[in-house]
């Protein structure tokens, strides 16, 4: 389904062209690791006709290719890279990604400017602090120092503060106050007070505090951005691997078109291994479909001309020509997508820990600063002193734990999980995951490996059928061949798509495949099965079952130990669901559920006040994934499920789920510790600032000191402890 399999696809849809016909093509290349790979790939691609330049980014795995004119053939580029032994697939050029990069760049530049300001302003304020302790620094020199500090700090603070000012302004316009409001007011008020103090020749100017505050907060902001950006790009890579191209027949020519452009009545070609792009009807061809990702059913469904196809099903054995009966957005997916959207909306209403704290914190800080101003003035110390103390309150109470420590905790947590093969999509996802108390598993592809395995057949029977099985690429035949091991292959083999394979074993004609193909009639079964028989001999039946993941039972036991209740919701039939649930040790299970019933059950649990983690991989799980409190999907899941899930785990073991929950809980504990520490710190520092005990030195020290403490707590080791 990647461009790799398709071979001769028309890939013009992926080229971004300007008016002159020059184009830019992006490919995701996997397998490149060193300078030699870069050299090989870039050289080979540059030598192609119509290619102007090629550049491989080793960090992101993207190959950017500049095309000079219409003559250039994107397909040749893909073929060339694959010919060198690397896996390549085309990347949809999206504007969103560019905007994302720009935001990161802006933040990095603001961070650089703030760092420059924070470093250089110290040159002038450190001597000023010395003067505060009665050292030799007369008043005129102090004023000169403050002026120099002002010249460095003011432009830096105004430039580096823009992300905060913008966000604060947007939030005020909506009639709300987020964390950036006290930060912005604090910075601006500090600058104003510092200027007025410097002009009046006073002792208290806080130019350094304003810039350092921004510098520290920008570190947090940048970490948060990196976390989101890396998760997003990884998610986009996964999507690119399942490239959204449908093969449209125009006359006799196949053309690749983006799935979104498929119209009703279009004739589409499905090669074995392709997913059905939109709902439709089979026009010609015979094959079998794997509906596991839509309905959760493991039994294969035979189809022939006239059969209905649902978007998302996997075409297994034969080439099909289908007529589209719905556009992409009207396909079976649409109903599920609507459910998902509703779920996502309810989820975006989730209030993050830092925002909860900010909602409490912002009014308290503003009230404290205002009270200080009014109180000090009322006590007859004059408006200048009053303003000074109010500014000091705003500075010492800077919300570093909120702005810096929580992103740092989440970056530490997600990089830990990333090494474990778990992709975290956002910080909020981690927070929700830490609150989970009930887990709902899907069966197929989550508890199980999602592939058929041969069960209970005598060795000599397997050996008899094996030569024919080895000659077929049908998934059941492959499972049979895997059970038999290496050995001879049948001769004169002919594979009939959707039926089976026929060939000669030791000179005897034999068939392997569906019951009717082998010659067994009037046989109905709900089990996944394959028949084998020599011509005119007794027929043998093989049955297949999905096996649980190797560590499923252990992972379930571990999850119980974390205090979680567990249940299985599956769209598959009673028998296989019950068997797998028993094998992995889960007593609560329900079978035969539709996607809508699944999400209703999740809603029901929510109504009971349970915080549900949904782990699922299919389209039938997507709605439930979106509605659950938190959700995880394996890397082999359909893209809709991966989009709906908060976390995606790659790799074979379910232990990733346990680890993700443990890490999420640790990171929540760390964040709470940081809030506790900042509350304690504010309890001491705020009264001191109100009573005028804080001078610029102490303000700078206290603010940076508290930030460093919360930051160190965030990154300190000990994540393994559960």
């Amino acid at each position, binding site marked *: 389904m990647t461009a790799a399999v398709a071979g001769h696809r028309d890939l013009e849809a992926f080229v971004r062209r300007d008016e002159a016909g020059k184009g830019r093509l992006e490919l995701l290349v996997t397998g490149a690791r060193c300078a030699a790979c*870069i*050299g090989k790939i870039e050289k080979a691609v540059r030598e192609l006709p119509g290619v102007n330049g090629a550049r491989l980014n080793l960090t992101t795995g993207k190959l950017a290719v500049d095309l000079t004119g219409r003559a250039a053939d994107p397909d040749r580029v893909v073929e060339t890279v694959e010919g060198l032994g690397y896996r390549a697939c085309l990347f949809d050029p999206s504007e969103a990604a560019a905007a994302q990069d720009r935001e990161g760049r802006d933040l990095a530049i603001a961070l650089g400017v703030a760092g420059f300001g924070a470093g250089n302003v110290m040159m002038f304020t450190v001597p000023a602090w010395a003067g505060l302790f009665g050292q030799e620094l007369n008043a005129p020199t102090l004023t000169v120092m403050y002026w120099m500090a002002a010249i460095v700090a003011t432009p830096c603070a105004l430039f580096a503060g823009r992300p905060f000012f913008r966000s604060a302004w947007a939030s005020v316009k909506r009639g709300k106050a987020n964390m950036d409001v006290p930060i912005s007011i604090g910075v601006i008020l500090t600058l104003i007070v510092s200027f007025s103090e410097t002009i009046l020749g006073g002792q208290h100017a806080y130019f350094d505090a304003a810039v350092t505050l921004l510098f520290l907060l920008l570190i947090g902001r940048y970490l948060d951005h990196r976390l989101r950006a890396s998760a997003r790009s990884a998610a986009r890579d996964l999507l690119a691997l399942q490239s959204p191209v449908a093969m449209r027949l125009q006359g006799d020519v196949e053309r690749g078109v983006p799935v979104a452009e498929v119209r009703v009545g279009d004739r589409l070609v499905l090669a074995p291994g392709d997913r059905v792009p939109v709902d439709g009807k089979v026009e010609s061809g015979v094959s079998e479909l794997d509906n596991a990702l839509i309905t959760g059913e493991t039994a294969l469904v035979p189809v022939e001309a006239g059969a209905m196809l649902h978007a998302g099903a996997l075409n297994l054995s034969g080439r099909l020509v289908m007529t589209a009966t719905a556009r992409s957005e009207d396909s079976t997916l649409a109903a599920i997508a609507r459910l998902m959207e509703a779920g996502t909306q309810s989820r975006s209403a989730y209030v993050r820990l830092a925002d909860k704290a900010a909602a409490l914190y912002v009014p308290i800080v503003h009230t404290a600063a205002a009270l200080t101003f009014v109180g000090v003035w009322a006590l007859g110390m004059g408006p200048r002193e009053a303003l000074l103390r109010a500014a000091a309150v705003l500075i010492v109470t800077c919300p570093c734990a909120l702005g810096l420590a929580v992103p740092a905790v989440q970056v530490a947590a997600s990089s830990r999980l990333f090494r474990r093969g778990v992709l975290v999509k956002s910080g909020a996802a981690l927070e929700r995951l830490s609150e989970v108390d009930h887990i709902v598993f899907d069966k197929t592809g989550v508890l199980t490996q999602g592939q058929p395995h041969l069960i209970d057949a005598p060795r000599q029977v397997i050996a008899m059928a094996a030569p024919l099985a080895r000659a077929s690429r049908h998934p059941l035949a492959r499972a049979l061949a895997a059970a038999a091991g290496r050995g001879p292959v049948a001769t004169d083999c002919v594979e009939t798509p959707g039926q089976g394979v026929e060939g000669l074993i030791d000179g005897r004609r034999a068939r392997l495949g569906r019951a009717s193909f082998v010659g067994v009639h009037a046989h109905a079964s709900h089990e996944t099965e394959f028949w084998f028989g020599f011509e005119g001999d007794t027929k043998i039946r093989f049955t297949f079952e999905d096996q649980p993941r190797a560590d499923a039972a252990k992972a379930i036991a571990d999850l119980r130990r974390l205090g979680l209740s567990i249940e299985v919701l599956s769209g598959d039939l009673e028998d296989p669901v019950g068997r797998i649930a028993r094998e992995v040790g889960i007593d609560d299970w329900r079978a035969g559920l539709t996607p809508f019933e699944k999400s209703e059950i999740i809603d029901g649990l929510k109504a009971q006040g349970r915080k549900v983690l949904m782990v699922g991989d299919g389209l039938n799980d997507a709605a439930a994934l979106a509605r659950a409190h938190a959700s995880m999907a394996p890397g082999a899941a359909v893209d809709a499920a991966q989009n709906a899930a908060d976390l995606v785990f790659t790799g074979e073991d379910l232990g990733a789920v346990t680890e993700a929950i443990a890490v999420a809980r640790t990171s929540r504990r760390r964040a709470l510790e940081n809030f506790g520490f900042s509350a304690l710190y504010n309890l001491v520092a705020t009264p001191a600032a109100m009573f005028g005990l804080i001078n610029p030195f102490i303000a700078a020290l206290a603010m940076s000191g508290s930030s460093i403490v919360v930051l160190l707590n965030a990154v300190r080791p000990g994540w393994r402890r559960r």
Partner: protein
Amino acid sequence: MNILLFLAPASVALGAMGLLAFLWTMRAGQYDDPKGAAERVLYDHLEDLPLSTKAE
């Protein structure tokens, strides 16, 4: 003390040079591919400049 009036701006100017250098590297896309840059120095025939800056 008058020397300060010369030295202080001089040191700020040096710092500003560093900042400008950082801004330039940022805009030139030098942080886009740290892993690739580390490998590219090993061969003479590999191009150093990112495609994006060359094309625009």
